[in-house]
């Protein structure tokens, strides 16, 4: 059966709670702040929320259920999206179906995480059963080491060089300097990128994100609801998700997007050439490069050439990760999976401020998450259009 379209679903009230490197505050605190900001910008009260979708690694021992009581919310639709970097788009996709079906009228999608000293180490060691059994005991390098292996295999297979990844990182830093909430505040040159201290070869310092605390969120509703409330919004043109794609690949060279990308463009009624800006999940530049390929902007293995022949800054010919991405804005746990989507909504609603891409009408956002053992398992993507 052909998948139903996402007609009439809009996204409003994009919110980013400014990130902090280390914070004593809890996930509950960060999520509450994001929700409060979302409600405020949409002139809503908590009772107006009848749907809630939550992503967080650090709520333990609570779940989103406990969060409803903690925050005094009574939603009739509740979702928990424990999908890391794929969470934002997947939360949107499911919330879209809820509002389409009338299960909910206004869904708040929110992601937030705490970051105390040593909490990253503890998160790594208990991230997943396969990670505990078969990855963490091997140097405990965490995602840096796991994705370094993927990068190493990718470079060997396709001839990509550090300077190609450097173009992604350097462009994002340039973008981040125009984003007021970015953790990274100083410029980054390609020379600095290439001479950075090694983290897990081939990765150096600027291939890796900075774990921090923070929260992101947005509201999902039907278009008529948004219009009735006088909200500015972006439209959802199409979206996909996929888990554990290509399990037989010996090492990850492609994500689940490659399985579903044609359907995404099909339901969105556009192609790669129509995308004005792209927000990829950039836990590492190599993963963004894979997304360029798997999302159809170039052929498999052509990512290095693609980044060499395009300008990825806000004012360039291929604006990419306009708020700096996680590499420069910081990775606030599951909120990292919301960063690009929230920025894309700001871009399409003219709220992006310093990072605004001129004339942005169509944006693509892709998510990627959960390195359970040797590869990221969740992939997601969405195409958004400006409203009105």
């Amino acid at each position, binding site marked *: 059966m052909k998948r139903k379209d996402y007609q009439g679903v809009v996204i409003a009230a994009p919110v980013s709670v400014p990130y902090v490197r280390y914070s004593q505050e809890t996930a509950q605190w960060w999520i509450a702040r994001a929700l409060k900001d979302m409600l405020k910008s949409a002139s809503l009260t908590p009772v107006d929320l009848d749907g809630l979708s939550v992503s967080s690694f650090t709520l333990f021992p609570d779940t989103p259920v406990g969060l409803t009581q903690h925050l005094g919310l009574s939603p009739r639709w509740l979702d928990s999206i424990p999908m890391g970097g794929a969470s934002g788009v997947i939360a949107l996709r499911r919330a879209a179906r809820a509002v389409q079906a009338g299960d909910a009228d206004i869904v708040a999608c929110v992601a937030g995480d705490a970051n105390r000293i040593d909490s990253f180490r503890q998160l790594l060691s208990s991230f997943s059963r396969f990670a505990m*059994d078969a990855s963490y005991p091997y140097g405990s390098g965490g995602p840096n080491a796991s994705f370094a292996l993927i990068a190493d295999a990718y470079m060997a297979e396709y001839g990509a060089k550090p300077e190609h990844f450097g173009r992604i990182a350097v462009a994002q830093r340039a973008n981040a300097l125009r984003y007021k909430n970015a953790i990274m505040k100083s410029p980054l040159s390609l020379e600095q990128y290439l001479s950075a201290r090694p*983290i897990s070869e081939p990765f150096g310092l600027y291939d890796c994100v900075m774990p921090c605390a923070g929260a992101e969120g947005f509201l999902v509703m039907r278009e008529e609801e948004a219009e009735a409330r006088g909200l500015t919004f972006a439209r959802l043109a199409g979206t996909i998700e996929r888990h554990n794609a290509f399990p037989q690949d010996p090492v990850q060279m492609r994500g689940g997007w490659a399985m579903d990308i044609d359907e995404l463009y099909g339901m969105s009624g556009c192609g790669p050439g129509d995308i004005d800006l792209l927000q990829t999940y950039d836990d590492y530049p190599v993963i963004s490069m894979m997304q360029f390929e798997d999302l159809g902007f170039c052929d498999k293995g052509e990512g290095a050439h693609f980044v060499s022949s395009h300008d990825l800054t806000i004012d360039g010919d291929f604006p990419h990760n306009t708020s700096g991405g996680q590499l420069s804005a910081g990775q606030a746990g599951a909120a990292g999976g919301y960063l690009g989507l929230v920025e894309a909504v700001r871009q399409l609603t003219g709220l992006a401020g310093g990072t605004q891409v001129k004339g942005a009408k169509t944006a693509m956002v892709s998510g990627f998450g959960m390195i359970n053992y040797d590869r990221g398992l969740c992939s997601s993507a969405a195409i958004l259009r400006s409203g009105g």
Partner: protein
Amino acid sequence: MSEKLPPPAKKNPQLRQRVPTLPPVARSRAALGLTAAAARGRFMLQHCAECGAVQYPPRDACASCLCVALEWRDTGRKARIIAETRIHVSPDPYFRERLPWRTGLARLEAGPTVLCHLHGDVGRGDAVMMDLKLDKAGQGVMIALPETRSADMEDDPLLRALTADPKHRRILVTDLRSAIAKPLIEALLAAGASHVFAGEPEAWRRGSERDAIAALDQVSVMPLDVTDQASVSRLAGEIGGKTDIVINTARHVRPGGVLGSDTVFAREEFEINALGLMRLAQGFGPAMCSRTADGTNSAAAFVNILSVHALSADPGYGAFSASQAAAYSISQTLRSEFRSSGLRVMNVFTGPTDDEWHQPLPPPKVTAGALAKAIVAGLKSGVEDVFCGDVAKDLEERWRRDPKVLERELTGGGA
């Protein structure tokens, strides 16, 4: 090619000795199957009983057909490295002290991709032999080794941390009156042990190979009687701080069942075989535990020689079997108590040894030389359990298959 490991320099007494840390220890129950295989020096993975698919990481259901009957089977070790990294940053204290640390992805010919430690001689593109070894946390881990042996490959620091190689280590052999003492000491020296302390009980008796042992280079004969707490304490006070491996060769065997023999022999067997082990562990264990991260000649292992009848009694040696079961049980508690330091307890299970106490038994029997060789090989490979000789191997196999059937066979009633 691995660099030859130089003998350790004398330690700087003004520097604090490194406190032992462990690599991550937590594992799921399924993953302990890797540990169980590594402990015995086997390379085993789960195979689906229905479709045969080989699984990794260990799991509870087949990823090809969802069958929940997964069987641990010996698996081909051949693989190729398809990716590698050198980790320079790790939040884990154990690895942080040992950076950079190399890991890689190995594609097994048997199917799965395995994230593994990399021996220094292998890298991306290389054909390798995979091995499962116990790490300092005592958990089974994957390591990719060169396809062909090279001269000093055991000296690779990453591999050495997974073994208890005698090279450059100082080893106490607790009882030189044991028939295996001399061949064992010679084998340890040949394997590069820097010094062997040979314990001599009852120096007031003659009739041992003491003089021949004392004449060996790098061997000191020291008074030690495992039945005497004071003797153990005295020697531990003298050499406990520089003993890297203890190999307990003290052993008392007398034939006879339970009804027919009195408790005098049994008591002597328990005094030496079980309580002697306790005394040694109490005397030498704490200092060894504090020295498991002490460089090239760090404390590495505590070795027991046990009869395979520790697992299931030989009624012809009833009290002796009981003492061996007790010693085995003590060794298991020691494993728990040594665990936080990374000090390994290696049990060497042997069948009937070729000595006066098993003289009327038919072959095969384990010679002193074979036992010595098995001990050294076990230390070099870093296993926890060694089954030496055909009888021990056969009995282990039968014990694994069905302890009750084995008990019935050993106690009469098998065809």
